[in-house]
C-alpha cells in the first residue's frame, strides 16, 4: 500500500506530460503543467512517507522527545511547500503569457505561434 | 531614329574627332587621322653615291622582284599561272608576297574603280622605296572598254607612276613575263626611280587622286 501514493503520483505526472505534449490549447497545456507539478508534489510527499508514522506536526499526539521516530521525514514536506509556491508563480506567469498570446493572435492554438523558427 | 540623321557621306564616323574620357576623368579630343596616322610626307631617297655599288644593288633589286599579291581587276586571274610549271616566274626571281611591306612590284591587274584606286594608293604608299608598278591591260592605259564609265579611271599614270605597261585585254602570262623582263632592264639601267618621282611630284599626284576620291579619309601619305 505504501507505494500507492507514489504510483498515483507518477500516473499524475504522466497525465500532466501527456496533456503538455498533446493538447493544442494553451490553457490546457498550462493545466497540464499544473497537473505535472501536482504529480511531482505527490511523489515528493509519498517518498517521505514512512509506514506507520504520522504527519510531522508537533502537537499532543506526538511526543516531542521521540518525534524523530514518530513522524515522517519533514524535509520533503517543507520542500513541497516551496515547490507549490514556485509552481504557483510559474503557472501565473504562464497564464500571463497565454493572455498576451491570445491578445496577439486571438487564438490559443499553440500551433499558430510559429513566427520564430529555423 | 538615328538612321534618319543625314550623315555626311564623305566622313567615316570612325575617323571623326571624338571626345574621350580618360581613366582619371580627364576629357580630351581624339582626332584619329592626326593621332593614329603618321602625317609625314614621302621622302626622296637618293641612290647610293658610289655608282658601282648602286649598280650592284640595282642588279640585286632586279633579280629579286617580290610581287604584292593584290588583284585589282580581272587580270588577277592571269597571275597564278605565272607560278605554274608552264611559266615558272620563279626563274626570274619573281615571288609573290602577301604584304606590301615586303613587296617591290605592284601589278595593277586591270581596270581600276575609283573605290579600288583608293586601296591601291594606300598599298602602293606602304611599299618601301624603291618600288615598281607594272600596269596590266588596256584599262590601265586608257580605260579600255570602261573608258566612259563613271567609276573607272582611264589613265593610271595620272595617279601613280607606272614603270611598265603591258597592253592587251587581257595580256597573257607570256606578256606578263615580258613585262617583268622589261622591268628588270629598266631597273638595271637605273631607271627604276619612279618611287622618288612620286615623292617629287607628290602634290600633283595627290591633287589628281583627291579629285576623284571624294571621301579621302586617310592621311596624305600612308606609311
Amino acid at each position, binding site marked *: 500500500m505504501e507505494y500507492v501514493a507514489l504510483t498515483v503520483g507518477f500516473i499524475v505526472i504522466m497525465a500532466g506530460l501527456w496533456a503538455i505534449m498533446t493538447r493544442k490549447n494553451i490553457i490546457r497545456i498550462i493545466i497540464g503543467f499544473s497537473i505535472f507539478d501536482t504529480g511531482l508534489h505527490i511523489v515528493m510527499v509519498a517518498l517521505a512517507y514512512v509506514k506507520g508514522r504520522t504527519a510531522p506536526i508537533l502537537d499532543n499526539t506526538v511526543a516531542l522527545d521521540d518525534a524523530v521516530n514518530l513522524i515522517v521525514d519533514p524535509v520533503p514536506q517543507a520542500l513541497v511547500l516551496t515547490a507549490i509556491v514556485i509552481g504557483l508563480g510559474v503557472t501565473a506567469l504562464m497564464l500571463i503569457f497565454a493572455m498576451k498570446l491570445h491578445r496577439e493572435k486571438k487564438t490559443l492554438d499553440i500551433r499558430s505561434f510559429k513566427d520564430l523558427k529555423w | 531614329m538615328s538612321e534618319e540623321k543625314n550623315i555626311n557621306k*564623305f566622313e567615316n564616323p570612325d575617323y571623326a574627332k571624338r571626345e574621350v574620357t580618360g581613366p582619371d576623368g580627364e576629357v580630351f579630343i581624339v582626332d584619329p587621322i592626326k593621332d593614329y596616322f603618321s602625317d609625314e610626307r614621302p621622302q626622296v631617297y637618293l641612290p647610293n653615291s658610289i655608282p658601282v655599288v648602286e649598280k650592284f644593288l640595282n642588279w640585286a633589286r632586279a633579280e629579286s622582284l617580290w610581287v604584292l599579291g593584290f588583284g585589282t581587276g580581272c587580270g588577277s586571274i592571269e597571275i597564278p599561272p605565272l607560278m605554274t610549271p608552264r611559266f615558272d616566274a620563279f626563274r626570274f626571281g619573281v615571288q609573290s608576297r602577301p604584304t606590301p611591306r615586303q613587296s617591290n612590284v605592284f601589278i595593277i591587274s586591270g581596270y581600276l574603280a575609283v573605290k579600288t584606286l583608293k586601296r591601291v594608293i594606300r598599298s602602293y604608299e606602304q611599299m618601301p622605296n624603291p618600288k615598281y608598278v607594272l600596269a596590266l591591260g588596256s584599262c590601265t592605259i586608257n580605260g579600255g572598254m570602261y573608258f*566612259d564609265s*563613271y567609276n573607272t579611271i*582611264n589613265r593610271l599614270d*595620272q595617279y601613280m607612276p607606272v614603270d611598265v605597261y603591258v597592253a592587251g585585254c587581257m595580256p597573257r602570262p607570256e606578256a606578263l613575263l615580258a613585262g617583268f623582263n622589261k622591268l628588270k632592264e629598266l631597273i638595271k639601267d637605273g631607271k627604276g626611280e619612279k618611287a622618288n618621282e612620286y615623292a617629287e611630284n607628290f602634290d600633283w599626284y595627290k591633287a589628281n587622286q583627291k579629285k576623284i576620291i571624294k571621301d579621302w579619309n586617310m592621311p596624305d601619305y600612308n606609311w
Partner: protein
Amino acid sequence: MKDLITKLSKAFELKDVVYQRSDMTFATANKENLISLITHMRDNEGFSHFVMLTCTDWIEDNVFQLTYILNNPTDKHDLAVRCMIDREEATMTSAHHLWKHIATYQRELKEMYGIEFPGSPRLNENFILEGWDDIPPMRRDFDTKQFSADTFFPRERPETNDPTEYMKKQLHPKDWTEQKAK
C-alpha cells in the same frame, strides 16, 4: 492566277496586267496601293519570298518605274508589281518592315537613282559608291561619258579600226587591196 489577279484588280486597282509566262505575271499598281498590295500578297496569298526591287528610269515619261518582284514558293509563281513614281519628287514608301532585305535594295536605289525611302535603315550611308556627290549615276540625265571625260584624264584615243579589216590588212595585204579595189 488569273482569278487572283481579277480579284486583286478590284481591290488594289491593278492596271496593265501582263501574263508574261505561265508562272510570271506583271501588273501595275499605283503608289498608294502598292505597300498594302504586297503586304496582302505576303500575308494572305502565300507570296512569302521577296525576290528583288529594281528601278527603270523612263525619262521620257518623267517617271521612275519601281518593280517589286514577289515569289510564291508553293505555287512557284512570280508576281512583279510595277509602280510609277514621279521623277522630280522621287519618294516611295519604304517596305523594309515587310522583308528586312528590302532595305538593302532601297539603299541601292537611293544611291543609284536618288529615290528616297523615308524610314529605311541606313538609307543615306554609302552603298557601293564611296563619296559620290554628283547626280545619281544611274539616272538617264546623268551623262556618264561626259563625266568620265571631265574627271578621268582621258587619253587621246588613236583612230580605231575594225579588227577584222585591220587583221586582214596586216596578214593578207594582197587580198585586202584586191578586195578594197573591188
